[in-house]
């Protein structure tokens, strides 16, 4: 497993990303974080983990495989999340000008290293 903080700091170089957190999937607590000032890390962690768990159950019930990436789109940006194995979730907050495609690729790569 690579150093999580280094992976998060690398992610923060993607244009438009306001930061990222590594979250415990079970309880939504922060494992590691690299966030811009003003971004509520605890809220990001708890809510994104909860959303991921809920969607895991829904996709399972639909007979689909587990979610590998999700993007919650909003007027002022996005919340991106990807599971890192069964226990962790990597979450990033993106502004409206973010390169979401690049962020997605970087996150999936980072998730593979963390898992």
């Amino acid at each position, binding site marked *: 497993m690579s150093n999580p903080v280094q992976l998060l700091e690398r992610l923060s170089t993607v244009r438009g990303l306001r930061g990222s957190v590594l979250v415990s999937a079970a309880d939504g607590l922060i494992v590691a974080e690299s966030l811009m000032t003003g971004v509520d890390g605890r809220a*990001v962690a708890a809510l994104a983990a909860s959303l991921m768990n*809920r969607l895991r159950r829904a996709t399972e019930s639909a*007979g689909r495989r587990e979610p590998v990436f999700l993007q*919650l789109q909003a007027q002022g940006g996005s919340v991106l999340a990807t599971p890192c194995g069964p226990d962790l979730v990597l979450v990033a907050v993106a502004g409206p000008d973010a390169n979401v495609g690049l962020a997605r690729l970087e996150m999936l790569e980072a998730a593979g290293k963390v898992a």
Partner: protein
Amino acid sequence: MSDDIRGMTAELAADPDSLIFLELGEALRRRGQLDAAFKVARTGLGRYPELARAHDLFARIFCDRKEPDRAFESWVTALQFDPSLVSAHKGLGFLYYQAGDLASAEKHLAYAGQADPDDGGTATALERVRADATAAKAAPASVSAAGAEPAQAEPRAAGDGAAPDDVMLPTIAGAGGLAFSFDEGARSPVQEAVFSGLDGGADGLLLVDANGLRLGGGLRNPDGQDVADSVAALLAGVSKEAARTTRLLALGDWRGLAVECGDGNLFLSAPSDSTLLLTVRGLDVPMGRVARFAERASAAARTWLERAE
């Protein structure tokens, strides 16, 4: 205990919120383990009191336990939560037929038949009910002479009150009664209406209300099984959670939730404040196109909701 039942029991023990209780309860019922089926159904209903399919399961068990009154209540409740649940219409049609209320039996069976025109069992049952109704009208003198209401036929003994499914077919058919199958693959007229005119129709489109109840559309798993109700129940609260997340992060109103799975692309959107629309497509459809299709489906759902109100 079969491997299937053992597996489902283990799954339910590991996740008491799992909707596997529906399959487990039905499997136990089919094996005649009615007490066990009842316990599973009762526990599941405690967790999902508004899930139509849970009430439907309860009704089947009551039928097998020869408690038609309770079966009737459960199917009526099921239809309150999902007026388009075909199996509940079939069940009520069967019970009304048994009770001799041919007009009500015909009404429910006609709905089930309209929802699934290819279901031969329902079509045969409907023919039988209509034939009996015609016969009852043709012989009013003898009925009147006995002091009975002419519109009512004699109660049927078909099936001895057992659940009208494929297990009971020989008994019911042997008694000259009705033959049913609980194939829930049918898409109801209501489901068709919401998304009519869209490319691909209602396949992989599911409109859900804030309580996790299906409003329209349908969803099947890759094996072709209807999973709409169970998925709808699990989606309850997603809209609020998404709104809360974006509000706390000062991102404004949420517009959509794109979910990539290993074998498909899902998109969630909110046609209105109190509804959620799930669009499911295979991996061969890029997420961007799924989102665009979801946008058009949302517009269709909004129109339908406005008309319904």
